């Protein structure tokens, strides 16, 4: 098992209102089988022991599914590996003596809270605006009474996999949240259950998204490249079509 010595340049910012700056830390003897977050744990243990403030970063499942973790690593959201969250990135993908620059996902609509921690509550507000099927508990019909073609169900699943991490926003030069929003819209739009509210949903969610201050899409495809779940830009096309249709019919 080989060990790595690394130089880390980490964004430190006390809170939303304080200015931030990069600090340099030396990471010595990091096991190449450790995950990126475990490497940060090691640094934080050392900082704590020296009586300094550890680097604040959000994380929870460490399995790539909760969407809590995330940082820009060497200029890329979630780091260099495709379809991989930061918590699933392992140190064997770095080389001895590498310098690693670590900074938070940045965008006006998802401001920094502290160090690498950001405020993604805008995402919740966009979902609250219409990212659901309005079914009351208890009113559902027998599950097999509505058949869903396998390919539709799988398509829905592919979009529904979004973990809401905001890497797409961080990667987009316009700070657009369109990949996130369109993933939810497509998930529900390809399923029969989602049809009754389909057009109303897209209008409400797009308006909520604009209100939060996210930017527009100019087809850069950076979001797709950064998405740890491989969500496709095709979702945005579907959203735009539905939005257009909704505006025609109302």
């Amino acid at each position, binding site marked *: 098992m080989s060990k790595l010595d690394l130089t880390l340049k980490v964004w430190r910012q006390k809170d939303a209102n304080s200015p931030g700056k990069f600090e340099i830390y030396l990471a010595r003897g990091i096991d190449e089988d*450790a995950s990126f977050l*475990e490497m940060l744990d090691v640094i934080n243990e050392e900082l704590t022991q020296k009586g300094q403030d550890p680097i604040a970063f959000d994380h929870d499942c*460490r*399995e790539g599914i909760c969407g809590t973790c995330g940082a820009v690593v060497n200029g890329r959201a979630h780091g260099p590996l495709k379809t991989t969250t930061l918590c699933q990135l392992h140190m064997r993908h770095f080389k001895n003596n590498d310098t690693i620059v670590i900074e938070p996902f940045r965008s006006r609509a998802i401001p920094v809270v502290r160090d690498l921690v950001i405020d993604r509550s805008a995402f919740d507000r966009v979902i609250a605006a219409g990212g659901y099927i309005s*079914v009351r508990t208890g009113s559902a019909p027998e599950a097999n009474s509505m058949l869903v073609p396998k390919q539709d169900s*799988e398509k829905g*699943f592919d979009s529904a996999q979004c973990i809401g991490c905001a890497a797409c926003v961080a990667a987009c030069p316009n700070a657009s949240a369109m990949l996130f929003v369109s993933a939810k819209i497509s998930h529900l739009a390809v399923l029969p259950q989602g049809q009754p509210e389909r057009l109303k949903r897209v209008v409400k969610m797009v308006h909520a998204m604009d209100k939060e201050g996210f930017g527009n899409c100019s087809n850069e495809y950076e979001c797709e490249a950064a998405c740890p779940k491989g969500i496709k830009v095709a979702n945005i096309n579907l959203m735009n079509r539905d939005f257009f249709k909704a505006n025609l019919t109302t």
Partner: protein
Amino acid sequence: MPVLDAKIPEGPLEEKWSNYKFKSKLVNPTNRRKHTIIVVGTGLAGSAAAATLAEQGYQVKAFTMHDSPRRAHSIAAQGGINAAKNYCNDGDSVRRLFYDTIKGGDFRSREANVHRLAEISANIIDQCVAQGVPFAREYSGYLENRSFGGTQVSRTFYAKGQTGQQLLLGAYSALMKEVDNGNVTLYTRREMVDLVVIDGIARGIIVRNEITGKIESYAADAVLLATGGYTNVFFLSTNAMGCNVTAAWRAHKKGALFANPCYTQIHPTCIPVHGEYQSKLTLMSESLRNDGRVWVPKVKEDRRPPHLIPEAERDYFLERKYPSFGNLVPRDLASRNVKEQCDQGKGLGSTGFAVCLDFSESIKRLGADVIRSRYENLFEMYEKITGSDPYKEPMLIYPAPHYAMGGLWVDYDLMSTVPGLFVLGEANFSDHGANRLGASALMQGLADGYFVIPSTLPNYIAGSSLSQVTTDHPAFKQAEEDASKKIKQLLGIKGKKTVDAFHRELGLLLWDKCGMARNEEGLTEALKKIPEIRQEFWENVTVSGSEGELNQTLERAGRVADFLEFGELMVQDALHRRESCGGHFREECQTPDGEAARNDDQFCYVGAWGFNGVDAAPTLHKEPLTFESVPLTQRSYR
């Protein structure tokens, strides 16, 4: 010894739930909005409960320590959710799901609750499909099923290896719909640090705002805890890093009894421990045992790479010992057998603590594409973590702490021993006895949230005359002060050892003495050591930063402080239960062929502990378990 009354409704088992619903008191729709209900936790249980109660018209305040309700640990559940739909026409029924769960739990759960769970199971699937949960389907468009451990039918619904994610996003969407409707107020990044009890009744909570550090009070007519399980007491577990016992433990200190804390589930198939720096263990879903075969080399100390060990020299020990269930025996049995093989020196991998989970035969039979469509994300996750490709080489797996069957004691209404405090999901002890079957936790969380609490909570509200209470009440002020004091104390120690170091020390001790196998000597030793670690913690822990800011070390310190108290209760419970049952395996109590030997004469009860002070002995209360519908027998999966 105090005896607990679970308030099980009258009548035959099959009619209890409908009798209950018919007899229970109701709250008039226009009166509902006069009642505020606090829901702590937004996992499957909490989100489902908050959304449904809001739909009924109650004013709901929902709290989560996460930045969004969708981050709850339920999101990580992989394999599936059970329901007695009998879509496969293979002999399933409510009765069979009930029976499998009782037997799987090794006859240590409450019949009436388990039957209700089985009855409700089918409605859950209907509800989730209506919300748009993209379950796996056949080409015909019908829902598909697979098998899980401890059963001989296929009743598990799934969405690849991401079932929990899809179910939670469904419940989250229902919750956000009610946020939009103005019936739910959402409080994120709030950690519950105390329960407020006034005149013996739960009337509110104290939380710490994780961003500002402010201590905040909220009052309500009832408090629902859906704060998940405590398996992180072992430090390394399959749970998310933030999972904790804090909310439940602090409620326990305010009077809620803690039931069966020693019933913890060690899951057989997890990626083995590989280094000192390791922060958590990763589950490889039980569903993999549908197509993966578990084996070790026939001879000891065979350290060849697994793919170089020829077929004739492999021992498929689960298939050999349990021919009727094969690789799909329940988790407790599978884990113990894996441990036994490794203890005999037949383990593989760099540490010798791993066995093979091998897909080569299934890939040959079904093709890699079929296997990919079933388990893609799991195989990817395995490769990312270990750097080895499970399509080509067998997975190496070993058991790891996974699930808490124990939890706060609740009666049939899901109410704890503190009136007005209800407990849902993994946080309660109710349905899984001494061992939970796979795909049953998601079912229970959603049953509690969507269907049980919306029927039982109104009965409580309508039947109580609750006085007006505001957060100006002295009980709130006192609890706020206590919370601040505790935080200041943690920050003031300024010792030399980190929070994680203490957590690791406690976890290793518990894994060693109170893990897959337990005995009197080890448990007694642990009981001596835990108070010592706890004392050192309060003298020598270092928590940097201050209280009025985002301080993740402080958050963890509070949780570890609670684990250090709770861990002792867990060991006490394990020591008192001189029998083996399910996940609680006392080495002194085995059958001649090494299976768990229950002692029904002395231990056929739920052990619920009352708090008497941190260093004082707890009081044991008993809820006797009676089995009217299923005869008490020795479990057999052979």
